[in-house]
């Protein structure tokens, strides 16, 4: 009797977990292996927690409210040099823990390179109303000037010159000269080479550092730039900064 209950319980958990994976529209080869990308958001090395107060590299205090970004066009290179592409679109939203895990089925078990786009490619910006992660109802779409917000950081800061101390970065733009998507590449060699074991699932752990938005290629201070909510030169500066936000922590081959 106990065994039955335990077995049933396990089955329920499995069904739950099984379905969780499908949150993500799957693309590419529906292969026999699976790869899991974990995104941990950080602020200069500390875990990012919404509601917490941090300091920018310019020692400006800010309290985080929202941190979201799109990941798409994932491409993997096998150790034999073949390129595998994944067609899904994923919205990493700090508010939803499950959104920070991307599970993709892959056809090979050995990879030494991963690349993805931070943002949404131009095709999906000009093809009408989309579904899933790209549904405009997710609040990552400009209705008055069609296009996706590739990444969003919202906070409050005592140094913001806005009346409500708002800090609002809705970074988007897909047209030539305003393209705020950024190509991210990682080489996976040595102990970071992906070698998925039989029926296993390797994990790639990334961190994304919110403080890079303020200081990387460009110095952007809250006191001078508390708001960026349209495509253009300023958005491009933020994009050049967040292009550096990802770090590869490690690969776990299970």
């Amino acid at each position, binding site marked *: 009797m106990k065994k039955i209950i335990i077995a049933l319980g396990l089955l*329920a958990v499995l*069904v739950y977990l099984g379905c969780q994976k499908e949150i993500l529209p799957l693309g590419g080869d529906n292969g026999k292996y699976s790869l899991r990308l974990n995104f941990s958001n950080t602020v200069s090395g500390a875990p990012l927690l919404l509601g917490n107060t941090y300091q920018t590299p310019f020692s400006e205090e800010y309290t985080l409210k929202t941190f979201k970004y799109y990941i798409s066009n994932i491409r993997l290179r096998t150790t034999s040099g073949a390129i595998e592409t994944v067609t899904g679109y994923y919205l990493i939203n700090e508010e939803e823990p499950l959104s920070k895990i991307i599970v993709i089925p892959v056809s090979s078990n050995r990879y030494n390179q991963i690349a993805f786009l931070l943002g949404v490619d131009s095709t999906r910006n000009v093809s009408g109303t989309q*579904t899933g992660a790209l549904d405009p*109802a997710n609040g990552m779409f400009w209705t008055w*000037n069609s296009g996706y917000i590739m990444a969003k950081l919202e906070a409050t800061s005592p140094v913001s010159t806005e009346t409500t101390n708002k800090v609002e970065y809705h970074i988007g733009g897909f047209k030539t000269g305003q393209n705020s998507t950024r190509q991210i590449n990682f080489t996976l060699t040595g102990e970071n080479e992906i070698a998925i074991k039989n029926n296993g699932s390797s994990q790639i752990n990334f961190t994304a550092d919110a403080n890079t938005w303020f200081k990387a290629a460009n110095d952007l201070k809250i006191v001078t730039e508390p708001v960026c909510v349209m495509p253009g030169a300023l958005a491009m500066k933020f994009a050049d900064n967040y292009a550096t936000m990802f770090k590869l922590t490690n690969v776990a081959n299970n």
Partner: protein
Amino acid sequence: MTRLHTILLLFVVCLGLVTFEACKKNDVQLPGNGQVGTPLAFTIPAGWPATAYNFDSNKITKQGFELGRKLFYDGNLAKDGFTSCASCHQQFAAFVTFDHDFSHGVNNTFTTRNATGLQNLAWTKNFMYDGGINHLDLQPLAPLTAPNEMGETITGVLQKLQADGKYRQMFTAAFGNDQITTQRMTRALSQFILMMINNNSKYDRVMRNEASFNLAESLGYKIFKSKCTNCHTEPLFTDNTFRNTGISINMNIKDVGRMKVTNNPLDSLKFKVPSLRNVEVTAPYGHDGRFNNLDIVMEHYRSRVINGPTTDPLVKNGISLSNFEIGQIKAFLYTLTDSTYLTDKRFSAPQ
């Protein structure tokens, strides 16, 4: 019932709930988008160009069209439960707001642009006076969410639709199941809007050799072809470009037009060339409704064009127009009124 049976029953219920909880966000759009229903023919009038809209992903069906029509006339979509698309787009005025420079949004607000007429939108690529919206399906999201129009959130609209049994039934009839998404809602609205073809004016009948212009109209057509047609190109009577017609900036609204979406100073004060179809019933004119009647528009082109840095070369020195010519042009413009379109029951509020 044994204890085991009870446990099994409980388990099945729980498993169902768990599965539902875990899977409910996971619907993946099926290829061919699962559209069902009775196809409605969309016919391109003879001699008209190819449409800008791609029907492959959104085929028009009677059920989708009727759903779009209901959505268009439903004030419940707005925050105040009262302001519908049709509040500002009135059929008897070729879907502008009759006799208004600006329209009324929720909470006694005003829009900041003159409502444009809705017609022949299958041939339009970029929407709004500044061309900011790049697909017909995306267009409704702007007025639905603008605080000075319908003032809702997309999620709010979807929740209202999901709570309404009639809508669930109509979404099922149009799309195969009662899943109500932004994409389906906007595609249904597009189906309704796409069918709004206006090609039965006297002008159209003359072109089809079913009628003939009187003397004033035919003189007016000649003048029109020599002085207006570069921008107001037949048969749509717009070339869908953005131009500065030599206007001053509206100091209250400070609307820079196309530059608002391109950030390019060369686009300052450029606005979409409006179609002249049904121009007789769509006064006032201009992006901010500054021209009360056609005589004032003509006077603008004849004597009031400001030759600014972005003024269109075609009008920067004004257009020479005698009073006589203005009279003939107006006679011609009135032949662009399609009275069957203004009263077509298919586009009226559903009963």
